[in-house]
């Protein structure tokens, strides 16, 4: 099995400080690191790799990201590839994933792509899904555990408010992994020394067969940011007859009625998507399509 892992070179959030003299982020004090969720992803990939399998690491980033890829090689990755081009401006997730998809194709598409679900800097959490869109592959996000049996991947997901879900997809697939599942192993001394001066292959736009137009996406506009839960319709007074636990639960739910979900078991994906849209319209999350 061939596994690809996407690694991001990110600033350590604890080192981002505003210079009191200039009012700007003090670039000189920022230290960079491998995104923690990506570190978990890499370790899981290394554990999963069968004897005849490979783990290839990819990163979109400047020359400094080579250190990260060398660390991955030292930990046991078989090959590394860095994508960068001086023509690149700001790296929106859609640009990053276009580049990553092209890079994955250059190396011949793998059977499984592991990504950290969220980066500690931008943290949009959209890379796995966007990458899936580019490759037209299934994607599972918020993954905490997974196993592969005869070409099918079964993943356990962590959802909001403590809920768990299990999903099953066929390979090839993309997983977005939660942060902090496992620590990356310590590299052996010979490996650490071997990679120290190992050059990392660099792919620019040309090598990826892309033109600057391919990376031009209409600017997105952010209209509003809202918490993802409906507003309470009334001040809620818990029922005094109930037990303490019941009353606490009632207060915690802030009077929001019925979170009861519905499981869509039948129908084609299109029918299921229609049902979800209808549900969201009915609850007032979406406007009725005209």
């Amino acid at each position, binding site marked *: 099995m061939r596994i690809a892992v996407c690694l991001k070179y990110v600033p*350590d959030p604890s080192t981002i*400080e505003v210079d009191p003299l200039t009012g700007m982020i003090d670039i000189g*004090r920022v230290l960079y690191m491998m995104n923690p969720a990506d570190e978990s992803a890499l370790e899981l990939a290394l554990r999963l790799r069968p004897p005849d399998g490979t783990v290839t690491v990819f990163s979109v980033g400047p020359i400094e990201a080579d250190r990260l890829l060398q660390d991955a090689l030292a930990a046991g990755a078989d090959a590394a590839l860095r994508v960068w081009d001086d023509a690149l401006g700001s790296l929106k997730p859609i640009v990053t994933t276009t580049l990553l998809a092209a890079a994955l194709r250059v190396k011949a598409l793998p059977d499984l792509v592991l990504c950290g679900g969220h980066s500690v800097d931008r943290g949009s959490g959209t890379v796995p899904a966007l990458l899936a869109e580019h490759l037209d592959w299934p994607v599972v996000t918020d993954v905490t555990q997974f196993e592969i049996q005869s070409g099918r991947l079964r993943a356990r997901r962590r959802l909001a408010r403590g809920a768990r879900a299990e999903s099953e997809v066929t390979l090839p697939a993309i997983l977005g992994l939660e942060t902090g599942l496992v620590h990356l192993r310590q590299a052996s001394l010979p490996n650490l020394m071997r990679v120290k001066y190992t050059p990392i292959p660099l792919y620019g736009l040309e090598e990826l067969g892309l033109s600057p137009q391919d990376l031009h996406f209409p600017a997105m506009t952010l209209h509003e940011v809202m918490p993802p839960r409906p507003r309470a319709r009334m001040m809620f007074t818990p029922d005094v007859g109930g037990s303490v636990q019941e009353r606490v639960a009632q207060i915690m739910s802030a009077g929001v009625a019925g979170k009861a979900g519905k499981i869509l078991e039948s129908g084609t994906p299109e029918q299921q998507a229609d049902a979800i849209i209808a549900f969201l319209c009915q609850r007032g999350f979406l406007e009725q399509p005209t």
Partner: protein
Amino acid sequence: MVMTTHEEKMRTVRFRVGATPHIVVNSEICRNECSVHACVYVCPANLFVPLDDGGILFNYEQCFECGTCYIACNQEGAIRWSYPDGGYGVTFRES
């Protein structure tokens, strides 16, 4: 701000926390054989917490790796220490 609390000081320091503690305190010795508890005072990162029962609780995560606790400890074997794994622990940026 010139005058700062210890918490404010510690917030300026960067730590990359390793998976295993590099300093281990044998609280049994602190409880039974030590009445001084020098570590509580001298540690510049204030990582030693005296417990009600006379024991000592130690947090290794924000350690400067200076070795003062080990030097100050007057009880043989109460503090066992080494450096954290390579690349982990404190990373000074300006000092």
